[in-house]
């Protein structure tokens, strides 16, 4: 590869390059930022992500390969890149005051955040199993560290070690799966594998084993049942700003890979894997929604809720072998990820305002009296909860509508039925937060934090407004899918 070729290739992935380089430079710059002025690091990190976001938007309509097909720059990648960078920005907004309050304000935080984001972006761009594995590690390792960022608090340390051990285990599955797929096909490029299958040169039984192992590993990342064990503890123990980011970011990463791999290469395995994915999705939504009912801590409740939401997104993968449905299904998954980001950040922003040092203010009972004392925050939390439940007119409703539509279109009426019934179950625990806020007396005290307020307000208004005027987002998701999988 000549220098000019290298430059051309790098230009195609410029947003990613910017994030990585910026993070490296920030690591150095941060050494010279005094401890009481860490706001500078936060702002610089945000600026870096805004620059990358701008560059990513300029790539609209681009559809090309880089690095010999190991990377594709298409609408799908762009959609997820923008979503990841947006989430990263929100994470910075949620973090700054919160970290100061918990007395864990350290510059590495923002650098780690940016590294993790670069992993997620790489995951969206990856079209080769090796790159996917690389991206997976790049997104995960900083997250392990971030989960333990509130050290020496035991809960945070526990979260980090648990996340690390199980995450490393999961990575092992992925890399073994990649090896077996390579063994079966002699290829690691997704497109090459597909063509190998078309040409009949691939051992399908071996390929299925590899695919299963990859599914297990990525299932860990998106918190699909039965690979979800780490989720409640990590979500609870990690600092809330990290959890808020991780819930969206890790899901985006995991689903980006799952969708890309299965849809573009493993269509031939659909006969077997549709049933497997069906089972995974059903288990995930049922367990997530049912166990969430028993939770008393809001972070744990949101953890199980995020498991359930992952289950809903998994539903979109079930009909992945049907060519006439899969476009809609992937678009629905993308749209749901976006909707999930909005509701997730709205809810976590409110959680962060109420959280006090040493894990106080996190019981669902602590929300009693919010409706009277802080009507706007309570309204935002209510909107988030209703959106999670899927009550119109919210983004969550449109998301579920789109998902169930794809699922029914694929002929899985039973799956859709389970989906709506578990939504009903979920109404019970989401409403419990609302009941506490509006129907029980209490004197909660929230932390004044303008950036968190802003996040909550934007997310809350977005859920309603974008829920009513969802056409542009739906079009975007549909176009993104078309450009990648047509």
């Amino acid at each position: 590869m000549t220098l000019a070729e290298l430059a051309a290739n790098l230009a195609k992935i410029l947003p990613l390059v910017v994030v990585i380089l910026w993070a490296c430079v920030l690591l150095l710059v941060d050494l010279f930022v005094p401890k009481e002025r860490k706001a500078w690091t936060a702002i610089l990190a945000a600026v870096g992500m805004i620059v990358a976001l701008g560059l990513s938007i300029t790539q609209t309509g681009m559809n090309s390969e880089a690095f010999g097909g190991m990377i594709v720059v298409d609408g799908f990648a762009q959609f997820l890149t923008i979503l990841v960078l947006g989430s990263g920005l929100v994470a910075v907004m949620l973090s700054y005051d919160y970290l100061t309050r918990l007395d864990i304000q350290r510059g590495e935080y923002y650098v780690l955040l940016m590294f993790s984001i670069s992993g997620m972006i790489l995951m969206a761009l990856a079209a080769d199993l090796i790159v996917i594995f690389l991206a997976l590690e790049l997104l995960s390792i900083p997250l392990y560290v971030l989960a333990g960022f509130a050290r020496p608090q035991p809960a945070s340390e526990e979260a980090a070690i648990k996340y690390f051990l199980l995450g490393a285990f999961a990575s092992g599955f992925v890399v073994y799966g990649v090896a077996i797929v390579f063994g079966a096909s002699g290829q690691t490029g997704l497109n090459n594998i597909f063509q190998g299958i078309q040409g009949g040169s691939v051992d399908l039984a071996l390929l299925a084993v590899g695919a299963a192992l990859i599914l297990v590993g990525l299932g860990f990342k998106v918190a699909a049942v039965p690979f979800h064990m780490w989720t409640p503890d990590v979500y609870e123990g990690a600092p809330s700003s990290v959890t808020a980011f991780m819930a969206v970011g890790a899901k985006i990463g995991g689903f980006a890979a799952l969708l890309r791999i299965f849809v573009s290469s493993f269509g031939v395995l659909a006969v077997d894997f549709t049933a497997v994915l069906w089972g995974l999705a059903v288990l995930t939504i049922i367990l997530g929604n049912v166990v969430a009912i028993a939770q008393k801590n809001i972070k744990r409740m949101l953890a199980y809720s995020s498991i359930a939401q992952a289950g809903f997104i998994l539903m979109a993968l079930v009909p992945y072998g049907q060519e006439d449905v899969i476009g809609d299904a992937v678009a629905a998954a993308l749209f749901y990820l976006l909707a999930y980001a909005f509701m997730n950040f709205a809810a976590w922003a409110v959680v962060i305002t109420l959280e006090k040092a040493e894990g106080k203010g996190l019981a669902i009972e602590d929300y009693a009296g919010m409706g009277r004392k802080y009507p706007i925050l309570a309204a935002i939390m209510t909107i988030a909860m209703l959106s999670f439940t899927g009550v119109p007119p919210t983004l969550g409703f449109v998301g579920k509508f789109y998902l169930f539509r794809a699922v029914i279109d694929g002929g899985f009426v039973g799956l859709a039925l389970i989906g709506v019934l578990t939504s009903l179950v979920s109404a019970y625990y989401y409403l419990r937060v609302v009941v506490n806020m509006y129907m029980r007396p209490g004197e909660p005290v929230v932390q004044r934090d303008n950036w968190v307020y802003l996040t909550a307000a934007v997310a809350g208004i977005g859920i309603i407004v974008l829920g009513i005027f969802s056409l542009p987002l739906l079009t975007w998701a549909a176009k993104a899918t078309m450009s990648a999988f047509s």
Partner: protein
Amino acid sequence: MNFLDFLLNPLNLVTFFPLVGVLVILFINRENSNAIRWIALIASTLTFGISLWMLVLFNPADPDLQMVVNIPWIQVAGWEISYFLGIDGLSILLVLLTTFLTPISILSTWTAVEERVKEFMLFFLLLEVGMVGVFLSLDLFLFYIFWEFTLVPMYFLIGIWGGPNRVYAAIKFFLYTMAGSILMLLAILWLGISQGTFSVPEIIAAGVIPGDIQLWLFLAFAAAFAIKVPMWPLHSWLPDAHVEAPTAGSVILAGVLLKMGTYGFLRFNLSMFPEASVRLAPWIAVLAVIGIIYGAMVSYAQKDVKKLVAYSSVSHLGFVMLGLFAINLQGIEGGILQMINHGISTGALFLVVGMIYERRHTRDMDSFGGLWKVMPVYAVLTLIVTLSSMGLPGLNGFVGEFTILLGAFGSKVLNTPWFAALAAIGIILAAVYLLYMFQKLFLGPVDKEENRVLMDMNLREIVTLVPLLIFIFWIGLYPSPFFNLMEASVAKLVENIQVAAMAGLP
């Protein structure tokens, strides 16, 4: 359609005008309760005014949809969702009922709701938007949004301002109703995919849904509507919700929200699934008659006045269902009129119960007696309302029930006079429990010390009730204007069902 036309379309205005009130209230200090009450009252009264304007524009001779707004909303990747509003003879009376009962309910809360007035009025006006939207929307997606959205404000109204057991009642209400609607959601999705559109008139016009699939779709829609009505045996949320809800909430719940269920059967089940409707009509009629008699008997067993009125709704709405599923002109017309009657009479009964509860803070019938001597005006007005609910000739209830019985009696679909005969027993039972209630409250000696000092109705309370009384007499004595409004549309519906059902029969 340019923007101004869109904005000034009567249907858009009547649906969304309450939002103006919402916006204004948002900017008023919560301490200023009176201003908030007035704004809510004015906003809802203006909405009623707009609905009267809509009535003036309405042409009763035209059986089709009028004042239609139909613009593409979400059209991407095989979705054909429109923002589609329209009105015809099936819905116009219900829209008027909604806009009419809302200001009355708001007026009834003047002294009853002292706490968190701001939120109360916000939720109330939002609820009105949802209810009117349900009656006007003709796109299934849009309809579902309004339908499900009404749950949220009502949930808060019960849960925040309700009685001692309000949280339980509110959650039960929410979950019960949602359980039905999610099945409907699946049916809507299925229809949208198979028909390529969510527009109700287009689906009806296409008319290609095979018979056995119609049956499933009918049942899925019926699940949502039957819970809302509520039909026996799905009624168990109703007494809880009613007893715990604040008075204004009960009025709207009984007056309008339940009608969303019966209207749903009319607009969606009967219109979109004619074959299934004809096949299942006898079964629905069986449940309706059971509801009529069961509701009446359980009413008689109550000690709490509000619970008595609540169970009477189960009985009265049984009549509506029987009328609708007689599937002939009289039956359906009677059914629609009875929806209005029930809204007025039961609404009035809940108001009356609310007034006495505000004075005595109990609804136990044993704590009263001889109120006629203490509160004569109240007693007379209550008597009229009670008689109207009983179906006394000359008052509104009679016209509706009589027409329904005629319809059921001559129904080819039900094909037996027994349904009408059994339902007639319900009328007698209604007289029993309602007169029993009246006697317990008003007749006999004043044997409780607290009851001697009760104030009679004040002007505001009389103003709240009088509009309802006017309609009680008007519909009772001269119902033809009301029938005229719906006649053309109902005739068209019945004809469509007959044609479709004939075609579907082997």
